Each structure stands twice: as structure tokens, then as C-alpha cells.
């Protein structure tokens, strides 16, 4: 019986091969980008590469427009993350335990910026900017990014708070701690890693965002906007690849950290 069940549950080697091939295929584009950062050919995308060089890295590092865009992106991502951490964790603290009228509505509202296509959020923000006669630029980018980053932090923190045993808080109160002390010594340490993970994901999301940003940026250039413009310029193409590699590294580090920060807690 048992051996039969095991046999029944065995995949054909074809299915296994297809599944692994599909998984590998999903990583091909990343490898391609890295590969083309070293090409000697700056006009076409010919493959196989005619030659290999490190020249484009030095070209990229010498270009000030890249560094300006990089600084702008880092600034936007830092401020948007900060805003999202504050607003997201406030919401999570309110929503984690209590049930109240309008709770469903708030959840819906939080998800809306990522449930609707980015273009809707983008054009909506632009409409408001135009109606209010504001000048689009750095601060409007930050406002837009904060809005869709809140839900990322919220999701992470609220999941952790729901797993925090209520009797820990009761025990803290019984021992004479007040609300602030309970928050400081019990709740905050428990939600810290989730908060950090949410913040990192929000940072990565903001650093890489283009669809909403193009609408709210005015004349300011974040790194993705620089990148987007570069796609339509046939000159020095490998520099674009070098920047792509940099962007991947900058977004990957926080994402991997976030993954490891939340993973052990799940296994505990």
C-alpha cells in the first residue's frame, strides 16, 4: 500500500525537467544584463559578444548625471520609507487587535494604491498636483512613494503583531508597567524585525519605482527615470547595463535582508 502511494506520487522526469527549466528561465534576463555590461560593442545587442571589457564601469562612475540621479533616488527612498514606517506601523497597531466600524474600509483603502494599476495612481497624483498648482518634483515623488509603501510596512507589522501573545502584554501590565513601558519593552522588540523588513521592502520598492514616478517627477530625475530615458538613446548602451547592475545590487541587498529577518520568526 505504502509503496504504491509513493509511486503514485512520483513525478515523471519530464515534468521535473520542465519545472527546473522554467525556474532557470526566470533568471535568464538578469544574467543577460550582467553579461552585456562587459561587451565591447556599444551600438547593437549582437550575441555572442564581440569582446569583453571593464571600460564601461569606469565610464559610468565618471558620469555625474548618474550620481545625481542616484542621490535623488536614495533620498526619495529614504524619506518614503521613513514615512511609510511611521504611518504603516501606526495603522498596524490600531488594526492588529481591535475590531471597529470601518475596519474593512481602511484595509481596502490601504490596498487600493497597489491594487489599482500604477498608472491610475500616477495620473491621479498628477491631476491633484495640477489642480493644486503645485510644482512637481522631489517632494511630490516622496508623497507618491510613501502612499504605496505604507501597505508594505503595514502587512509586515500587522502579521507580526497578530502573533504576539496577548498574555505577554497582560503580564507586563500586571507587573506594573504602563502602556508606554509595555510598548517600549514588550511590543517594540517583538515587532522590530518585522518593521525593519517592511522598511527594507518599501525602500527597494521606492528605489525601483518608475510607473508612478514618471507622472509625479516634473523635471527631477530619479535613477529609474534616468534609466528609462537612456533606453531610447542608442549611445553608450553598456553604461545602461552597468547602472542596471548597480540598481539590482542596491535593491537586492535590502530584499535579502528582509527575507532573512522575517524567515526565522516564521520557523520559530
Amino acid at each position, binding site marked *: 500500500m505504502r509503496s504504491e502511494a509513493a509511486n503514485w506520487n512520483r513525478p515523471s522526469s519530464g515534468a521535473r525537467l520542465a519545472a527546473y527549466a522554467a*525556474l532557470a528561465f526566470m533568471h535568464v534576463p538578469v544574467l543577460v*544584463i550582467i553579461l552585456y555590461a562587459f561587451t565591447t560593442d556599444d551600438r547593437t545587442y549582437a550575441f555572442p559578444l564581440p569582446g569583453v571589457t571593464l571600460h564601461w564601469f569606469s565610464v559610468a562612475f565618471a558620469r555625474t548625471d548618474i550620481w545625481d540621479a542616484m542621490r535623488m533616488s536614495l533620498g526619495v527612498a529614504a524619506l518614503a520609507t521613513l514615512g511609510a514606517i511611521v504611518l504603516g506601523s501606526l495603522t498596524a497597531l490600531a488594526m492588529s487587535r481591535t475590531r471597529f466600524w470601518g475596519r474593512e474600509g481602511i484595509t481596502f483603502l490601504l490596498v487600493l494604491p497597489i491594487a489599482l494599476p500604477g*498608472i491610475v495612481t500616477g495620473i491621479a497624483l498628477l*491631476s491633484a498636483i495640477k*489642480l493644486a498648482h503645485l510644482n512637481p518634483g522631489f517632494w511630490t515623488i516622496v508623497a507618491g512613494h510613501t502612499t504605496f509603501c505604507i501597505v508594505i510596512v503595514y502587512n509586515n507589522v500587522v502579521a507580526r503583531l497578530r502573533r504576539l501573545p496577548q498574555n505577554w502584554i497582560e503580564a507586563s501590565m500586571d507587573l*506594573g508597567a*504602563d502602556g508606554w*513601558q509595555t510598548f517600549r519593552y514588550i511590543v517594540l522588540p517583538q515587532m522590530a524585525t518585522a518593521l525593519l523588513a517592511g522598511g527594507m521592502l518599501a525602500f527597494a520598492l521606492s528605489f*525601483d519605482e518608475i510607473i508612478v514616478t514618471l507622472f509625479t517627477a516634473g523635471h527631477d530625475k530619479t535613477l529609474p527615470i534616468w534609466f528609462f530615458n537612456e533606453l531610447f538613446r542608442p549611445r553608450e548602451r553598456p553604461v545602461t547595463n552597468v547602472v542596471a547592475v548597480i540598481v539590482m545590487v542596491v535593491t537586492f541587498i535590502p530584499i535579502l535582508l528582509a527575507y532573512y529577518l522575517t524567515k526565522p520568526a516564521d520557523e520559530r
Partner: protein
Amino acid sequence: MSAVAASVMPAPGVLRRSATFLYRRPGLYLVLLLVPPLLWFGTVYLGSLLALLANSFYAIDEFTAKIVYQPTLATFKQVVTQPAHIDIILRTLLMAVAVTIACACIAMPIANYMTRYASPRAKALFYVGVMLPMWTSYLVKVYAWRLILAKQGILSWLLDSVGLGGALDTLLRLPGVGGPSLSSSYLGMFIVFVYMWLPYMILPLAASLERVPVSLLQASADLGARPGQTFRNVVLPLVLPGLAAGSVFTFSLTLGDYIIPSVVGAPGYFIGMMVYQQQGTAGNIPLAAAFSVVPIVLIMIYLSLAKRAGAFDAL
């Protein structure tokens, strides 16, 4: 711990009294927590959506190219009656449906393998392997596909070296889907869309496949069903919510995208490109706003269909 104990002893300070005050009034505590985020969402986000709606009811003066701030339905009428605009809407809708179906067909075997057959370690590898490309920079991925699909790029080199170059040329000569190269055809755009949204389909599908009890499959097999019949009659109805949830992502993301059609693009316009171009070079924000209501309406229709399939139980 001793710090806590020490601070308990003296007469209650402002902090402690405020904590007690709030503890006795959970309603007030809740309101204080919720005011900042709700204020933000109310002004920045809902305000923007209202501004969008307001703008779509304005129209642009055809002679001065200035926005006339008087409510009118003229802009909406323009969107749904001009043949060129209807073409754009239908083209986008068709692409979104095609991409959704293709994603479902490719994601199903992968999700099935990773949830049912893979060993625990292989399963972890699959989950990370699916999530990593999802979190890779969006623009970088689009750009990579432009390199892959380019004339003389990797894909055509690969097909040439296995002797299928002629097949690609025939494919590209097809009217409608073809073009001068893969990177400027609807076929190429379709491939990029499917690649980009595939993880968004795999993950909810895998989540709902995990919840299908193995005993049901065994029972079905014991009763004489062939694997295909088990899949159709047992598995598919059970994972329908996951499928619907994934399709909400693929459908909505395709409808609103304007980067992919402009980077890996055939000449035809898509809703997103139309919105972007109208607000930018054309300066016609009312038309852009009215056009962006189209994907909202389409998604609302789709969501209500998905809800009937139970998509939100699987999210």
C-alpha cells in the same frame, strides 16, 4: 528589568498618567493611532482620486489647448466613440486576456510541481527562485528582454544555431502579431508581459494548491480517474480561487502598463501609453484622466467576476 522596576516606584509622571488615561479610553487611543495615516490617505490618495475624477469631467478647448473648468461629458464621449480610441481599448483588453491565459497555463505545471512533488528543500528553492525575479528591478527586466529579443540578439542567435531561424522569420511575417523584429512586435510584447507577471500567478496558485488535500487525489485515482480527469474534476475546482487571484494581478498589471509597450513596442497604442502621452506631450489632462477611468472600470468588472470565483479567500 530593574530599570522598569525602578521607574514604577516614584509618583506617576506625565508619561505614566497619559498612558493610564489612554488605557481607560480605548476609543480615543484608536483614534489617535489612526488619525495620521487616515489623514494622509484622505488628503493625498483619495484627494488625488477625486482630482482625477474631476479632471475627467473637464474638457480641453480645441483652439487654446487650455483646460476648461466646466463639467462636461464630452471627454468621456471622446474616449468611447472615437474609433481610434476604441481600437486602443480593445487592443489592451485583448493583450490582458491573452497574457492572463498564457500565465495561467505556464504557472499551473510549475506550481503543481513545486507544491506536490518537490522535496522540502527543493520547494524552498522554488519559492525563493520564483520570488527573486519578482523583486528584481522592473525596468532592468524590461531592458533585459529588449536585449534578448533584439535583431541579432540572443534569442535569434539561439534559434539560428539550432536551425529554427527560418521559423522565427515566418512567425514575424504573420500579420497582426509580427513585425520587423521580435523587439518591435506584439509577439515580443506578449512574451515580455507573460514573463513579467508569471510570478504573480505562480505564488497564489501554489498557495491554493498547497491546500488541496492529497487524500482527495488518492480517492479520485482509486475511483478510476485518469490524471487528466482528476485534474479537471477535483484539482481545478479547488484551485479556482487561487487562479482567480493570480489572474487579477496579471490582468490589472497588463491593463495599466505603459513602459513595456513603449520599450518593447509594436506601433499600436495601449491604454497606458495613451494616458502617459496625453498628460505629457499633448498636455490634455482631461483626456488622460478619462482614459485612465477605462482600466478602473474594466478591473472593477473583472474583480466582481473574480469575487464570484472566490479570489479574495485566496489572497
